[in-house]
């Protein structure tokens, strides 16, 4: 299946045209900066930094972060097609994808909790412990995804 993918027109365009690969790589970096940057800032707030930004207002950043996620995932799919067989058997790549998948689940859990409980956290001044723990796991997963992503180019 991965060999078939590498033979498609899309794969050829990404892998062999002059601008296909650089454009996708550029978009992948922009998406990364947005999704990791925004989610990590949100996590840092939940852990206890940036006092004065209400927990309720954090939710407004959700769409921007997921926009970054979509840019990242879409460009990532294009990049994947260019060397599908190599990526599909690369341990750091598979680790990266697993960590992104788990980080996205963390983000979904956090935003559901925030929607229900943020006003309470604002009035009591503290986030419940389980959400703080998930925020820390989320930071670790995004950091791990960046590390594994970079190592994909080397291993």
């Amino acid at each position, binding site marked *: 299946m991965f060999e078939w993918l590498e033979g498609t027109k899309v794969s050829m365009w990404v892998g062999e045209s002059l601008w296909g690969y650089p454009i996708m790589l550029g978009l992948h970096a922009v998406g990364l*900066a947005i999704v990791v940057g925004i*989610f990590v800032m949100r996590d840092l707030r939940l852990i206890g930094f940036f006092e004065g930004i209400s927990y309720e207002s954090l939710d*407004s950043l959700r769409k*921007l972060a997921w926009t970054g996620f979509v840019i990242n995932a879409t460009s990532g799919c294009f990049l994947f097609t260019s060397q599908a067989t190599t990526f599909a058997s690369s341990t750091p790549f598979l680790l990266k994808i697993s960590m992104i998948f788990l980080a996205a689940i963390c983000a979904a859990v956090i935003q559901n909790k925030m929607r229900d409980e943020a006003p309470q956290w604002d009035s009591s001044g503290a986030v419940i412990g389980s959400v703080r723990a998930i925020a820390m796991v989320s930071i670790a997963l995004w*950091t791990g995804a960046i590390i594994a992503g970079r*190592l994909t180019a*080397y291993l």
Partner: protein
Amino acid sequence: MEGFVQAVEGSAINQWVIGTAWGWPIMEIIHFIGLSLLLGSLLVIDLRMAGFFRQLNIVATHKLLPWTFVGFGMNLVTGFLFLMGDPARYTANIGFWWKMFLVAVAGLNALWFWVKINPVMKTWEPHADTPLVAKTIAWVSLGSWFGVLLLGRLIPYIGTG
């Protein structure tokens, strides 16, 4: 530039960068984490300063600034080490010089923020719209930093001498 390249190549720092096992990928990892902190914190600060996300308290968003500086510091150090490791490739690359130009623009813009906005910002309504000068500074900041990001990622692909 030839003199610079000759001075760097073979120097102790040059040898250390290219001779350290896993040095280059580790520096790249730090550079990527740094850019996420820099751009993530600036996205929140600048988009609020551009008038978006008014639910966010504008004065409080500036508490993210130390993380901007941490990210910038990580990238300044690792970026300098990249240059020391492979001076000929970077100095011959037009993308690298455009990137450095945009870093300088972003730096001057930060200075403009420091002079014009920082002294008066504490008196602003936390959830109100922002004046034109603040919006301008915010967009110059986002434009220059995302330009830096793109040029940095594309250095291997554009205008290699």
